[in-house]
């Protein structure tokens, strides 16, 4: 790890420590913002669950706490001082950054065993990727608000880093942990299997992809079962946590506004259509996995990136932390940015939505002069910006792949016929 990366990490740590100490009211303010904290990641709800857990009551009884039981055990084991908690979150962010820097160092985004981009010299240096994650205002806000999404992001990035290094088992375990914490990273499993298969250190010892995939899936399921079993014992021998954690992601009982698209739909939906639309919305996320894995077989890291981007838009309780993760992973593909067509539009729309979102939320909830439509319109604009970015990145990577076969088309306009 080079000096610049260390400087970036230290700067980020100092920045977070500075913000935690100089503005002690800031974490609570950010925790209460709906764009940053969702019902399944909020620190306030975690504290509520901790209180109930520590007093011998079931933490899932109140219908407020929807997070994994292992977090309860973790925070109970920690000494309860705010400095320790802040340090834990900062360390999680640092670990995420280290994983990202590791991924950037291997250069796998530009050259995989199956594909080498002609623009790989334009990739960002590792420290810049780390900076894109650590100094991203969305990441800083998520870390400051002590949302538990930080742990999920750490787990995902660690999984990718391990897989890129060719270590299958740690990668699977880390992905299992991230899926255990919040359900949706499980969608990255096929791509992660492909990635570790490609990056396997000893190609000579390789088994066929089918066997590899089956073994990995078994390991994943085993890890999930192990984690669920541990949760069963933590919550005092009951399976009720299953509905309160994964059931909430799937059935959407809590309709608190967030930057996603689901809450507004389901507030106004008649009960008889609820199950149908829940299935449709969940399936919508599921359908991308197969297509992306097949089309981008040569670049599984990009599949993971795109799936995380789609999750950031279409999962049940997204927040800006998911967007931060996606943008940081996307910075690994800096070499294809020149091929993207709508960067200015997408960036300005994203900025516009991030500024107007809190304003319209204030108008709706506090001033009372707006209504939910104002805020929902901004979340729609936010999703539009992200859609454009995801689609544009897909186009850019596809074009880059296509140009490796047709080097003469570099710099020329292409049109779909």
């Amino acid at each position, binding site marked *: 790890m080079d000096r610049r990366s260390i400087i970036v990490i230290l700067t980020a740590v100092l920045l977070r420590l500075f913000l935690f100490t100089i503005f002690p009211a800031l974490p609570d303010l950010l925790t209460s913002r709906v764009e940053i904290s969702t019902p399944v990641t909020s620190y306030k709800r975690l504290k509520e669950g901790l209180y109930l*857990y520590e*007093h011998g009551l079931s933490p899932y009884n109140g219908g407020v706490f929807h997070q994994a039981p292992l977090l309860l055990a*973790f925070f*109970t*084991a920690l000494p309860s001082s705010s400095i320790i908690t802040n340090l834990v979150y900062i360390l999680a962010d640092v670990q995420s950054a280290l994983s990202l820097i590791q991924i950037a160092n291997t250069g796998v985004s530009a050259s995989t065993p199956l594909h080498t981009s002609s623009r790989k010299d334009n990739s960002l240096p590792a420290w810049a990727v780390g900076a894109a994650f650590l100094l991203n205002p969305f990441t800083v806000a998520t870390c400051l608000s002590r949302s538990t999404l930080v742990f999920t992001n750490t787990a995902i990035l660690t999984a990718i880093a391990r897989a890129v290094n*060719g270590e299958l088992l740690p990668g699977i375990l880390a992905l299992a942990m991230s899926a255990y914490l919040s359900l949706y990273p499980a969608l990255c499993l096929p791509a992660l299997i492909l990635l570790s298969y490609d990056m396997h250190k000893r190609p000579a010892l390789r088994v066929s992809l089918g066997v590899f995939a089956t073994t990995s899936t078994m390991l994943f399921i085993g890890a999930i079962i192990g984690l669920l079993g541990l949760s069963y*014992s*933590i919550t005092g021998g009951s399976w009720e946590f299953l509905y309160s954690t994964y059931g909430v992601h799937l059935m959407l009982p809590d309709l608190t506004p967030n930057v996603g698209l689901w809450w507004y739909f389901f507030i106004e939906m008649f009960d008889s259509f609820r199950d149908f639309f829940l299935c449709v919305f969940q399936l919508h996320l599921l359908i991308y996995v197969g297509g992306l894995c097949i089309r981008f077989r040569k670049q599984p890291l990009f599949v993971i990136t795109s799936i995380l981007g789609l999750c950031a838009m279409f999962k049940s309780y997204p927040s800006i932390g998911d967007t931060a993760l996606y943008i940081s992973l996307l910075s690994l593909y800096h070499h294809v940015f020149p091929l993207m067509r709508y960067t200015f539009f997408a960036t300005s729309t994203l900025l516009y939505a991030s500024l107007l979102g809190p304003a319209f939320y204030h108008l709706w909830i506090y001033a009372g002069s707006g209504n939910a439509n104002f805020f929902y319109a901004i979340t729609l604009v936010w999703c539009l910006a992200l859609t454009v970015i995801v689609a544009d990145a897909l186009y850019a990577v596809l074009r880059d792949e296509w140009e490796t076969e047709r080097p003469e088309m570099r710099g020329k306009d292409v049109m779909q016929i």
Partner: protein
Amino acid sequence: MKFGAQIALLLPLLATLPFVSAQHTSNWAVLVSTSRFWFNYRHLANVLSMYRTVKRLGIPDSQIILMLADDVACNPRNVFPASVFNNADRGLDLYGNNIEVDYRGYEVTVENFIRLLTDRVEPDTPRSKRLLTDDRSNVFVYMTGHGGNEFLKFQDAEEISAFDIADAFEQMWEKKRYHQMLFMIDTCQANTMYSKFYSPNILATGSSKLDESSLSHHGDNDVGVAVIDRYTYYNLEFLENNVKNASSKHTMKDLFDSYDIGKIHSTPGVRTDLFNRKLDEVLIMDFFGNVQNVEVDAEGDVEKWKVDAEELSRLAAKITMPGAGCAKNATKSGATVPSPPDAQKILAMKVEEKTSPIRNAIGVCALGACAAAWFAATLLGKS
């Protein structure tokens, strides 16, 4: 228990009293303040004082019709919001939080008043706005406001004349809607209002005679207006000092004898020619209180009554003590009656003061297992 207590009360009454068909069996009160606006505070205080009096002597809200403009308690000019006082010492808040106004604001009109008395109301009028009296009801009608020679102003917009009230009372008599009536009125030239009555069993009293104004008693410097009228003040003084509970034996003659022109500063009048009982035999509680007498239908059948009452008391005991009743039933009929299921006592959830060490240990073990799995995997992966 209530049932049993009532039966217990009635039994001695039945034993001592013979057929009680000549007395009243219910008490109603119609209390009307015909003024609105802040400076007529004292009229509202008059009516509310009467309201509190009849309530404390036993008439329930369901048998009181209270007609007020009700614009004083929450008036922006009221320095004591939601409170109405009838005395400068502000010892008693007449408005309080236990008040039931039946006709308020612009509902207090001449038409509504006459419809109320004669029960010619819309089919969808709620029971609380109807005078559901019968021929054994004693009705106390109290009116206050601004009046004149044979008229009374309603809400500064219309008037009711003495003839109208007299006709309304006659309709009530025709429809058998009262047993005896006490009509009390505190306005200027009040006695003219009852001069036109022609129905039997009405006892009327007013605060001042023709060409005489009724005066207010005193004002409160903080409220800013007069808080009570003299006639009503001295009526209340008598009632509060002498008629303290339901067993009071004071008569209407005592009340009327207590009127002192020197104190009231106007000539109160009493009209008794339509009233067939002697005033020293009429209890104040007959009109102001809620003494209920029981009417016996069957004559000479006291033994049957005793048997019925005993059966009722047994029924009451069975209802209040189901266990005892069931046991009696079982022994009587010989068949087994299933006992009621034990009521499950729901206690409060047990909340521990701090985490049990076992929980802590399980948590730490779980975390340790995760960490161990991770390190093992890393080592395996590296090798």
